[in-house]
C-alpha cells in the first residue's frame, strides 16, 4: 500500500487554502499557491456571506431599511445606520434636530471604538498574543452594555440612527455611564502598550504597503493612513457635527502590519476625545424630525439621487440612492471599504509573504466579510 503512494515532491508548488472555515478568517477564503514557505500567488475567494442587501432595500420602506443596514457590517452596525440615515435625510430634505446629530456622532464613535477593539483582539489572536485578545473582548463588553442600555440590543441597534434623527432619546444618567466607560477604554488603551518582543517581531516590517501601491489599489481609512496619507472624510467633508469637533487624524509612514495596528489604537484615543467633546456640548430638545415622529407607511421619497460618503472604522464607505418618487428607493448601491482591502490589497500583500505571516497580514487590514460581500 505504501509503495503505491507517490512520494511528496521535494520542490514544487502546493495549493493552500486559508479559510473560509478557518476560525480566524471569517466567512472568507484565500486560495494560495505556495512553494516551500513562500506564497507565490494569492486569489481571494469571496461570496460566502452575500445576502443581497442592495436588492432587498428596493422592496422596503426607509425605516425597514434602517433595520436592515445594521447587518451591512456586524462589527460596526451604528456607522452603517448613520450612512443610510444620511442618504434618506438628504433625499427627503429633512432637517435633523441638533440633539439627534450629537447623539448620532456619539454612537458612531462608540461603534468605531468597539470595532477597533475587535480589530485589536483578533489581530492579537492571529499573532499568538492571547492576552491582547482577552483584554480587548473583555473591555468591549462595557461598550456593548452601553448599546444595550441606549438602543435595546447589544450588537444590533435595529436602526437606532434612523432617518430623521434617532429612534429614542438617551435614558436618564446615560451621559455619566458613557463617561465612566470612556475611562475604562483609556485604561485599556494603556494596557495595549504592553507589547513583547515576539509580538513586534511578528508584525514589524510585515506586509508593507507603500503609499503608491495603497493609492493604486484603492485603499482607504486606516490602511491608507498607515501608509502615510492623512485622508479622513470626517475632516475633508465634515458631516453631522464633525466640523465643530477638534480631533487629529493619526498618520504613520511605515505601511506595515504594526503601523496599521498602531493607527487603530491612536484612532481609539481620538474617538474617545470626540465622544467627550460631543457629550460636553450635548444640547437638549427633540431627537427626531416631526416627519418621522411616528413610523408612517405612506411616506414617499421625493424623486432624486444622492451619494453620501462617510468614514467608517474600516475606511471610506458610500451609499448611492436613487428614488423615483415611490415609497421605497429605486436603487441602492453600497460602497464598502473592505471590498478593495480584501481583494486587491490582500492579494498584493500576500504575494511573496511567508506562510506564518498570513494571519498577521490578513488581520492587519481590519477586514469584515459582511461588509465586503453585502
Amino acid at each position, binding site marked *: 500500500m505504501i509503495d503505491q503512494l507517490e512520494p511528496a515532491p521535494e520542490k514544487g508548488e502546493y495549493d493552500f487554502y486559508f479559510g473560509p472555515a478557518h476560525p480566524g478568517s471569517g466567512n472568507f477564503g484565500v486560495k494560495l499557491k505556495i512553494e516551500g514557505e513562500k506564497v507565490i500567488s494569492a486569489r481571494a475567494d469571496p461570496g460566502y456571506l452575500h445576502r443581497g442587501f442592495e436588492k432587498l432595500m428596493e422592496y422596503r420602506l426607509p425605516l425597514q431599511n434602517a433595520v436592515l443596514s445594521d447587518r451591512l457590517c456586524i462589527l460596526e452596525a451604528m456607522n452603517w445606520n448613520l450612512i443610510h440615515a444620511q442618504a434618506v435625510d438628504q433625499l427627503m430634505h429633512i432637517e435633523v434636530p441638533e440633539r439627534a446629530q450629537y447623539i448620532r456622532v456619539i454612537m458612531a464613535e462608540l461603534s468605531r471604538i468597539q470595532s477597533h477593539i475587535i480589530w485589536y483582539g483578533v489581530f492579537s489572536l492571529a499573532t499568538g498574543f492571547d492576552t491582547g485578545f482577552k483584554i480587548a473582548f473583555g473591555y468591549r463588553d462595557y461598550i456593548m452594555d452601553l448599546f444595550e442600555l441606549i438602543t435595546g440590543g447589544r450588537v444590533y441597534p435595529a436602526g437606532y440612527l434612523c432617518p430623521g434623527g434617532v429612534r429614542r432619546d438617551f435614558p436618564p444618567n446615560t451621559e455619566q455611564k458613557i463617561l465612566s466607560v470612556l475611562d475604562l477604554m483609556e485604561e485599556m488603551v494603556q494596557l495595549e502598550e504592553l507589547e513583547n518582543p515576539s509580538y513586534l517581531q511578528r508584525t514589524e516590517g510585515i506586509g508593507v504597503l507603500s503609499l503608491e501601491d495603497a493609492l493604486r489599489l484603492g485603499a482607504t481609512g486606516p490602511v491608507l493612513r498607515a501608509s502615510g496619507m492623512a485622508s479622513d472624510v470626517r475632516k475633508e467633508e465634515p458631516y453631522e457635527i464633525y466640523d465643530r469637533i477638534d480631533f487629529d487624524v493619526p498618520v504613520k509612514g511605515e505601511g506595515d502590519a504594526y503601523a496599521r495596528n498602531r493607527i487603530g489604537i491612536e484612532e481609539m484615543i481620538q474617538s474617545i476625545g470626540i465622544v467627550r467633546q460631543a457629550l460636553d456640548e450635548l444640547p437638549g430638545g427633540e431627537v427626531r424630525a416631526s416627519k418621522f415622529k411616528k413610523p408612517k*407607511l405612506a411616506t414617499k421619497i421625493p424623486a432624486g439621487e444622492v451619494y453620501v460618503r462617510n468614514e467608517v472604522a474600516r475606511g471610506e464607505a458610500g451609499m448611492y440612492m436613487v428614488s423615483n418618487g415611490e415609497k421605497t428607493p429605486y436603487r441602492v448601491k453600497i460602497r464598502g471599504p473592505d471590498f478593495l482591502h480584501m481583494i486587491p490589497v490582500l492579494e498584493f500583500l500576500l504575494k511573496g509573504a511567508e506562510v506564518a505571516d498570513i494571519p498577521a497580514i490578513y488581520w492587519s487590514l481590519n477586514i469584515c466579510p459582511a461588509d465586503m460581500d453585502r
Partner: protein
Amino acid sequence: MNIWILPALLRNLFSKPMTVRFPYEAIPIPDDYRGEHIYDIDECISCELCAKICPNRAIEMVEAPEKLKEKYPKKYPQIDLGKCCFCGLCEEICSKDAIKLSGNVFLSTFDKSTTIKHPFSEE
C-alpha cells in the same frame, strides 16, 4: 520586561473577574431592552399596521378560534419569533400600545412550534 506590568498584575490578582457565573447570576437587563413581545388583545384594534411595518413579515393576522369568535370577531397578530429581528417597529407604530417588547431574552427552545406566539394563547 516592562516594569509597570507589576501594578496591573497586582490589581488584577485582587479584583473581581469581568465575567459573571451565568446561571446563578446575570448582568441586569435594561427596561428598554428589545426582547419577547407582550401582547394585549383587549387593546388591539386590528389595524394591521404592525404586520405591514414588520421588515421580516414575522407578524400574520389570524382569526380567533370558534369559541372566542363572538368576543374577538376581527383578525389579530400572530408573531413568529423565529422570523422576528426584534427591531421594535411594531411597538413604535402601534397607536394603542397593544404590543410591547419586554426584557425577556431567554427564548431558546427545543420545540420549533413554541416560537409562534398565538394571540389567544392566554385565553
